[in-house]
């Protein structure tokens, strides 16, 4: 439990993947977003497919947009989503 992150999906990604959140175990020292991404892609082909179809995938860690090199620590909230289309 202490080494888990919450992963969220929004909009088209949420629909394609068929779920809106996951709980994922990561190393206690953390991992870059890119490594977490590959981990969940391997675990679920629906995620791999949805991400592959989304060339401009965005990621937020603890509700702040970040690059994929950003480190994710246990307890963080990580959200993947397509480019935003508000306004």
């Amino acid at each position, binding site marked *: 439990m202490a080494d888990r992150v919450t992963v969220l999906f929004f*909009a088209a990604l949420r629909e394609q993947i068929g779920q809106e959140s996951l709980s994922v175990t990561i190393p206690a020292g953390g991992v870059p977003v890119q490594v977490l991404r590959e981990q969940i892609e391997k675990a679920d082909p629906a995620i791999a497919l949805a991400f592959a179809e989304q060339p401009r995938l965005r990621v937020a860690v603890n509700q702040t947009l970040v690059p994929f090199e950003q480190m994710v620590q246990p307890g963080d909230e990580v959200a993947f*989503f397509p480019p935003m289309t*508000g306004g």
Partner: protein
Amino acid sequence: MSVHVRVQAEPFDAGAQTARLSALSTHTGGVGVFVGQVRGGHGLIAMTLEHYPGMTEASLNMLAHEAVARFALTGCTLIHRVGRLEVGAGIVFVGASAPHRGAALTATSFLIDRLKTGAPFWKREEYADGRTQWVDARETDEDAARAWGLKNP
């Protein structure tokens, strides 16, 4: 200086919001406003606005405070609706008050350009024939946001 940010399902009252900005300070000489609404055409009947609760409010707050500092505003208001909105319905209210018109108008453009691609909202279109479709992000919107200076990754 006053910042007012809301994410809500209910309609907003553009008139009351404009009046509030006008009345904030006797140093205000101009108020700029932009209202975005659901544009009809091609059989579109409604849009559904999804968002990322928590991050949405934080993004809008940060954006509003950035505009206040950058353009020396006397007030700034951002209201964004979520949920299902039919053709003609208001989606977003952006307002900026300042001593002079230049700052008020430039801030209004800055706020809507940045909001479009920098706050976690997503639109799904709904057509008369039953078809639904997520709106694709437009490169031109991302260019407009970037033109105000680098911000998003």
